[in-house]
């Protein structure tokens, strides 16, 4: 069974700094998709970024980028020039591309951006 592990329950960084959130996963699949979701205090879950496992190039969305290491089964999220609005819970998620499997979420990392 696939699992997703986020080893950092909580992190704090100063505004404008760069922060990296870690995520590792376990699967025997070769083709799959990975996602990072953000959940601010308003509780609305928002997709931040996604990565297809067959793509070697790391996905980037403005200040958000990932470091996808397929062999190591690692999928970290880097937030550059962090802003107060980045304060949120961040969830890493995995979904197999081969079947109708459900998406698997990690337990989340609570990120505080300090003024």
């Amino acid at each position: 069974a696939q699992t997703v592990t986020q080893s950092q329950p909580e992190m704090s960084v100063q505004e404008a700094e760069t922060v990296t959130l870690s995520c590792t996963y376990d699967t025997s699949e070769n083709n799959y998709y990975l996602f990072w979701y953000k959940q601010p205090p308003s509780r609305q879950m928002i997709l931040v970024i996604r990565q297809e496992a067959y793509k070697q190039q790391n996905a980037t969305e403005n200040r958000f980028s990932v470091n996808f290491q397929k062999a190591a089964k690692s999928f970290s999220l880097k937030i550059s020039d962090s802003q107060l609005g980045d304060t949120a819970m961040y969830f890493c998620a995995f979904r197999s591309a081969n079947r109708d499997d459900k998406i698997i979420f990690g337990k989340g990392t609570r990120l505080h951006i300090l003024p």
Partner: protein
Amino acid sequence: GAGVSQSPSNKVTEKGKDVELRCDPISGHTALYWYRQSLGQGLEFLIYFQGNSAPDKSGLPSDRFSAERTGGSVSTLTIQRTQQEDSAVYLCASSGARGGNQPQHFGDGTRLSIL
């Protein structure tokens, strides 16, 4: 609206009562998920519907919990004989593709409080 709609947004009820939570997914989305989120915690998977396949009920915490999806669209989550530990936010999400890279789209959740 174009998003996932959940109702009610808040529900307060007495211990022992039954409650029904509703989710209207995005039109055309074949996959529908229910999650439970306790205050400040991660997502607890409850149940997953995919098209006409039998639902994955592996996350339901007890036989007091049940869910159905009528006509492949609207879903209701029912909690019978509610207990105080059922107090949480219940999130619904839908996605469009079978085993694909389509992310989940989340509703705003129902905050359930059991007195």
